[in-house]
């Protein structure tokens, strides 16, 4: 048996290297591009290592099925709030992809990802394949989620492994006819977002359209942007589901309190770099 494979398997068992690095090394060693090509070669060359690899892949899939159950429960609770279908956490969209995906040396930013200003970023609900992007490219320190649901455990584990702090500031989306985001809630979120100690920070809800768009609109208000340009940006990210109520909420948001709070702490004005 090959010494290189021996030491690789040992390193994996001692958790000295991650699953990803393990597979990467195997791919390099056999000079193949993906798992599909690797499996037959490895099975023939070294069956023991092949079985270890298979177990590794199997485990990552088991984790998905367990988590699916949790997501369904969380969703039922949410029914009470009559959330829009498009605004809901969709477990199918968040299934853990085959590990092969993260071995092809590409970055997977979340949907609707963008820089807002300086070290503040926005996106839709992260997926496990986005972690490498968060860690290696953005070097994220914290994430703010604006939902009340339980957070998927596999993501929580990955955040703590990578020293990313998760803040929760549940905001109920603006809904006809009577649900409005309160200034108080927005201020609470802004106090987390504007605090430089939390930077680089990523803000997200489900699609990165409505709640995230509303909060970003309020940040633009603090930058003294004209409302027309704020709405233009809001619609660009919310397309094709822009909500009039969100835009009204941005317009009616009274920034005085947070402005005073943030100026006292020299968090304002915000800097582009």
């Amino acid at each position, binding site marked *: 048996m090959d010494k290189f494979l021996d030491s690789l398997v040992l390193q994996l068992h001692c958790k000295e290297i991650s699953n990803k690095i393990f597979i990467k090394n195997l791919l390099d060693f056999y000079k193949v591009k993906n798992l599909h090509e690797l499996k037959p070669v490895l099975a023939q060359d070294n069956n023991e290592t092949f079985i270890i690899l298979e177990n590794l892949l199997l485990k990552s899939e088991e984790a998905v099925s367990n988590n699916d159950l949790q997501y369904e429960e969380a969703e039922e609770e949410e029914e009470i709030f009559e959330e829009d279908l498009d605004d809901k956490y969709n477990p199918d969209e968040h299934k853990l992809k085959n590990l092969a995906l993260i071995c092809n*040396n*590409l*970055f*997977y*930013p979340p*949907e*609707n*990802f*963008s*820089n*807002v*200003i*300086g*070290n503040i970023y926005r996106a839709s609900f992260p997926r496990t394949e986005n972690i*490498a992007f968060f860690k*290696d*490219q953005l070097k994220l320190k914290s994430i703010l989620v604006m939902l009340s649901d339980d957070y998927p455990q596999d993501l929580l584990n990955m955040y703590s492994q990578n020293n990313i702090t998760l803040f929760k500031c549940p905001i109920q989306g603006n809904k006809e006819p009577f649900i409005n985001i309160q200034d108080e809630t927005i201020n609470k979120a802004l106090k987390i977002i504007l605090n430089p100690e939390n930077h680089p920070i990523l803000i997200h809800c489900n699609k990165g359209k409505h709640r995230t768009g509303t909060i970003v609109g309020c940040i633009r208000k603090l*930058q*003294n*942007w*004209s*409302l*027309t*340009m704020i709405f*233009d*940006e809001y619609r*660009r*990210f919310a*397309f094709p589901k822009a909500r009039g109520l969100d835009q009204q909420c941005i317009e009616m948001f009274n920034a005085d309190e947070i402005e005073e709070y943030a100026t006292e702490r020299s968090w304002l004005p915000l800097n*582009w*770099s």
Partner: protein
Amino acid sequence: MNILTTRNKIIPPINFCPVEQKLYRSGQPSPLNFPFLSTLKLKCIVWLSNEDPEDSFLEFCEINNIIIQFAAINPDFGEDDNPWDGLNEKSIFSALETLLDKQNYPLLVCCGMGRHRTGTVIGCLRRLMNWNLASCSEEYRRFTGSRGGRILVELLIEGFNKDAVEIDETSIPDFILNTLNY
């Protein structure tokens, strides 16, 4: 304009968005946007349209010592160079060369509307940064407005050969360097 200036509101250019720290994209800035542009402390602007920018914009750049790089290169100087044609490969590489030198930052990439030509260059930059193609395309289409994206632009982004870009690790911005050794 009087109303706007007296009310003292900040007006970013059309389709303005930060791409990375110190790197921005937008459509052609107008005098309304100059107070905002000044806050970005730009060093360089990559102009991708094959039509010249408006005089007021050129003047703004001159006063503020901003270098404009005219990156749209017509390969044979013929008359077939239409505003609605996409960028050619030479233009993309010429624009990227500016983007790959950190001395040019803070930097703004713009064309007439900040949709297709700007989208092409930013899309190719994302490919260079090892982004997956779907994310490049999603970002491009976010800025293309109600008439949607152009397939030809997306084919350019997909066909972009990132290995043909010469990289000098000592001069490229950190946000790109971070992604290369991934």
